[in-house]
């Protein structure tokens, strides 16, 4: 193989067919920016929902005069229950202290006694911060003697879960559509860029080039389209991310983190787009007839 010639052909292909190359690179860049942007938006929404869900806690209020053995039994139940990450005991005094912190008034001064019950605050681990797991826990704990009431923000949890599911499905469908459109767009643009070089292909065949020889520069060129296209997409994604972070600063406490592993993904997908697009298109030209 005259590697020198083939590599040179691959690189000069970019310069010789400026417009088709530019179109192929642009289509890869736009597709990857849309896909990358969709991925970032999806993961951010997921992170926000996770954050909201992690703040959920179950509060177990005890009856007045509950015995120590009741408390031990409850603690054992909590320890054995699936999905419980941690729990803490809130005594009557601590409850009063919290009341004062939240409402600015001393409940004992106001009422003459402390009516607040003892309670436990239970936190679920990440895998069990969902409606089903929490309901199961609530049902179990409610039956333990000495437990008066178990409270959690049931309505909010249900809404979050419903939206989470809807967003996940809608996001998945949109990403699939974008991916399909990207494959079509990139495939057709590359086909056009190869169509623009049909003279080179025809003449190479006339002078005795094998299919492999003809294909190689196009593969190199396809990979180059992919590398340059993903480079452009990386820059666009970075700008997009910084811009969104800047706009959200006032509204949202969590700062967006640029995921650098995403860049690797963008590069790999970009090169694959370029390579597969070129290979598929060149095959159409090479497989036409015995001669041509």
């Amino acid at each position, binding site marked *: 193989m005259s590697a*020198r010639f083939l590599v040179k052909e691959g690189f000069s292909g970019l310069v010789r067919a400026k417009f088709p190359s530019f179109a192929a690179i642009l289509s890869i860049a736009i597709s990857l920016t849309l896909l990358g942007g969709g991925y970032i938006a999806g993961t951010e929404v997921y992170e926000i929902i996770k954050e909201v869900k992690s703040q959920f806690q179950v509060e177990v209020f005890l009856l007045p005069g509950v015995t120590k053995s009741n408390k031990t039994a409850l603690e054992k139940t909590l320890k054995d229950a699936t999905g419980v990450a941690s729990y803490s005991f809130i005594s009557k005094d601590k409850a009063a202290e919290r009341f004062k912190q939240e409402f600015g008034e001393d409940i004992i001064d106001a009422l003459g006694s402390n009516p607040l019950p003892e309670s436990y605050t239970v936190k679920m681990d990440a895998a069990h911060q969902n409606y089903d797991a929490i309901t199961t826990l609530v049902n179990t704990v409610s039956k333990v003697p000495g437990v008066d009431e178990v409270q959690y923000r049931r309505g909010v949890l249900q809404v979050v879960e419903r939206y989470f599911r809807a967003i996940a499905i809608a996001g998945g469908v949109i990403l699939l559509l974008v991916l399909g459109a990207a494959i079509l767009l990139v495939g057709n643009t590359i086909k056009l860029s190869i169509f623009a070089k049909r003279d080179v292909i025809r003449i*190479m065949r*006339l002078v*005795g080039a094998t299919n492999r020889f003809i294909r190689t520069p196009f593969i190199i060129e396809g990979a180059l389209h992919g590398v340059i296209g993903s480079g452009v997409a990386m820059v666009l994604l970075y700008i997009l991310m910084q811009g969104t972070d800047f706009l959200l600063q006032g509204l949202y406490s969590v700062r967006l983190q640029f995921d650098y592993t995403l860049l690797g993904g963008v590069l790999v997908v970009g090169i694959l787009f370029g390579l597969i697009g070129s290979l598929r298109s060149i095959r159409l030209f090479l497989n036409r007839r015995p*001669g041509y």
Partner: protein
Amino acid sequence: MIDFYNVSHRYSRGAGVYDLNFSVGRGEFVCVVGPSGAGKSTILKLIYMDEIPSTGKVVVNNYDSSMIEKNSIAYLRRRVGMIFQDFQLLEDRNVFDNVALALEVMHARKKEIKKRVLESLNSVGLGHRSQYYPQELSGGEQQRVSIARAIIKDPVVLLADEPTGNLDPVVANEILTLLKRINEKGTAVVMATHNYALIQNTPFRRIHIEHGQMVD
């Protein structure tokens, strides 16, 4: 070296060639003559296996159309030079690179390519034009470049499909003289033409084609 055995080839649009039987020997100069649309180009295409016969077979330098695999056609074409009425040069590369392409596809070394391209260009009188682009050359010069590209690989046969079709009579005669010179060095030439005047004073064997058939 080139043998047609009961060759018929029909295109889907209807035209084609029918029941051709002839041979071209090594070093021979043969003119395929006939009016436009008679099937002259089809005969050349059958020789460089751009078309495979519907029935019968063509054998070129031991490559048999009835058995040839798609990948082997490239190797056949390294032994067959081709020139066309429209020159088939790449406009985006210079004369040197156009001619070098024929050796690049055969994986020749850079040094050898340089030497042989210049030799080939000199042999057609264009050694001084190697850095020009096709569009900077006259029609006759462009055809010489395509001849240089065809003969650089020392083909056993040079196929010329209306090589003078786009040229004025004076230049056409120069090209014919060049083809004769190439033939005298031992390369067979098969030239398709409808220009009877061009070849009337030549001693070459003629194959007359009309409506896709050989006529006496």
